[in-house]
């Protein structure tokens, strides 16, 4: 690779410039610019189909953009994928895990794939299984896990190699309240320790509780961005979201037969 390993914008953990993705005729993401400051807890909001998953997939190297750049801690994801991918942990949404492995096997797989030392993998895997209450010595195949457990083992795989940037797509979907609280705790501690979290969601309550920074997406473009306080102002985040996205409000006359 002839691209120099130089770091630009060391202050932003994730920097997207002019990202575009078209699927056949539909424009899924129409030129997104986004800077995620290092050490921030960044929430990417948007209704279904806004392009959140497409954007995050392009940011972590899962989907090749038609145009634009994505940089992780200064490393270009598409020009220098090895250096960039080594620094991120990803929890994709709507993507299957290697679910014919047991939870521990899956963790070992991810750890060794990341080039970790076998001893470290053993220690961290046991700790993660314990902390995330997936059961130490549990030999159930991941395919037989519940939806919430699958999210948790996916999160564990993303955390295992202690990346500096975590990109989580819908980490709280299908997770029960107890597990959600646990995941929130872990992510809080991770950010307090200097890590950066980018996650997508459409659950306003979670975002308001967790995030330092927010961006709202609709129709493949970012409509509003800034710190939580800037975006929210003196209103609730939900009101801002509905106004920005342009949702319809019920008049009471439709669905009268229901």
């Amino acid at each position, binding site marked *: 690779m002839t691209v120099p390993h130089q770091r630009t914008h060391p202050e932003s953990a994730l920097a997207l410039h002019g990202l575009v993705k078209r699927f056949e005729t539909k424009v899924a993401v129409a030129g997104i610019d986004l800077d995620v400051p290092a050490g921030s807890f960044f929430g990417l909001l948007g209704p279904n189909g806004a392009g959140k998953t497409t954007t995050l997939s392009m940011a972590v*190297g899962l989907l090749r953009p038609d145009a634009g750049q994505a940089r992780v801690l200064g490393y270009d994801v598409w020009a220098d994928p090895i250096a960039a991918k080594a620094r991120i942990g990803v929890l994709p949404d709507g*993507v299957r895990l290697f679910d014919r492995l047991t939870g521990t096997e899956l963790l070992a797989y991810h*750890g060794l*794939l990341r080039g970790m030392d076998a001893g470290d993998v053993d220690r961290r*895997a046991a700790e993660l299984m314990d902390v995330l209450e997936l059961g130490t010595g549990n030999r159930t195949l991941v395919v037989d896990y519940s939806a919430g457990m699958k999210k948790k083992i996916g999160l564990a795989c993303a955390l295992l190699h202690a990346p500096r940037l975590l990109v989580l797509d819908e980490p709280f979907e299908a997770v029960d309240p107890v597990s959600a609280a646990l995941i929130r705790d872990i992510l809080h501690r991770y950010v307090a320790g200097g890590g950066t979290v980018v996650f997508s969601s459409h659950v306003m309550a979670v975002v308001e509780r967790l995030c330092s920074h927010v961006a709202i997406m609709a129709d493949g473009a970012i409509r509003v961005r800034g710190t939580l306080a800037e975006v929210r102002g003196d209103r609730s985040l939900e009101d801002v979201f509905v106004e920005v996205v342009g949702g319809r409000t019920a008049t009471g006359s439709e669905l009268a037969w229901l």
Partner: protein
Amino acid sequence: MAVKAHHFVRLKLRLTANGLRGQSWRVVMFVLGALFGLFGAFTGYIIFCLPGLLEKQRAAEIVTPLGGALIVLSWLFVPLLLFGVDESLDPARFALLPLRRPTLIKGLLVASLVGLPALATFVATLGVVHAAARLGGPAAALTALAGVASGLLLCVAISRAVTSAFATALRSRRARDLATVLLAGTTALIGPLQIAALAGAQYADWGRFGVVADVVAWTPFGAPYSVGLDVAAGRAWAVPVKFVMVLATLGVLLWWWSATVEKAMLGAAGAGGARQRAASRRGAVAELVPRWLPANRFGALTAREVRYWWRETRRRASLITFFVIGVFLPVFVTLGSESSTTPTGMLIFVGALAAATLANQFGFEGSAYAANVVAGVPGRVELTSRVAGFTVYAGPALVAITLVVGGVTNRPQEIPALFGTLVAAFAVGLAIVLPVSVGAAYPLPDTVNPFAMSSGGGMAKGLLSIGALFGTALATAPLLLGSWLLGDAWLWLGLPIGVGYGAAAFAIGLRLTGPMLDRRMPELLATVSAAQ
């Protein structure tokens, strides 16, 4: 509004059309498949009607039941072995709709009739009607037409019933051993037919052949095709008997199918249940990576592959299928042919078939491959580990096949050379299949039926496998030439030359495909994880 069979047909046509939309390679596959079907249909038509055109009643009585039985058996085995079943109308998707089971079965059956294979079969067997018309006039032709129609229904029903039952059997993890035996047994049925065909072809002994044909004409496989000729020969009494036999078989098959469909529909929601396994006290790495593999990236990838070949039903099905064909085919060919030459050509076919199992290796796991993309696994490591994982199963199978063939031909001195040829064919096949698996991957539907294919996918799978087989046959031709030219020296040189030739071919294939995978990783992921 009552649901009628034509709704299923329209759904099937719509799904097929949507599957083709905007995917040029699928259109190409579809057109190629249509051409193949057309070719097969006309060849079949000519073979069936030729005896009639020549006014040879006895020849027709031999060709028709045997040809018809061959067609029914192909409907039984080809989906299992090569193409997979078009599960675009997966019964599980109808589980929540208020449909009565007879309606569902009727709809699925009629929808199965709409498709290239059914159409090609129908056109081919119309040759029987043509022949009957020439030999016995309109009455014979009408009877033959009814026979051919019932034969088509039998073909479709047998194919759906057996694959559905087999899929249900394989899904239950405990029943897999039973399924293995069943498949082996049914595949073994090919043997007697083959022996009969080969023996007949060699001696052109029409008398012996005729006896076989007369027997087959009284089985449900040959009966639907022979009724027209019975009328022509003045055996009208046989017609109702044969029709009762065919309809009874059809009834049993439909009943069996509907029973397994019920299970398949329930299975989608409550499949398996968590397997209780003994708790492990070992470390995570020791649990994943066996002791004989290094505890690094290569070891992890290979260990995962080894587990997947056994734990995933789709892979397990292709593994078992390969093993059964690999052992049985060379044995039957050897036993069937009277000449005592060793079946080298057949071994090359088997080696290539082993490699062709990997033709869509990335399609097996679908979107789960994202984990490897995110971790940035280098292409060469990815490919070597996959081949290593498969060889853990294929390697012993290849050894076993060589030993069995050497034993059956009673020429143990040829075993080393045979093994060399087999290894060379396997490695050459891999060299051809690796770029195919990266460049021409296709998504597999997310169902528990290991034989399920998305619409159009079956054609892709079959054509890719056949292409790989052809390529391997061509690329291993120098070895065959060598074995002829070198004579007895080949007995000793065969092993080193075969292994060396294979290793070189594999190295070239890997060298070319590694960088290709590095470049195409996100595109490959998008292809295999596309929702069908």
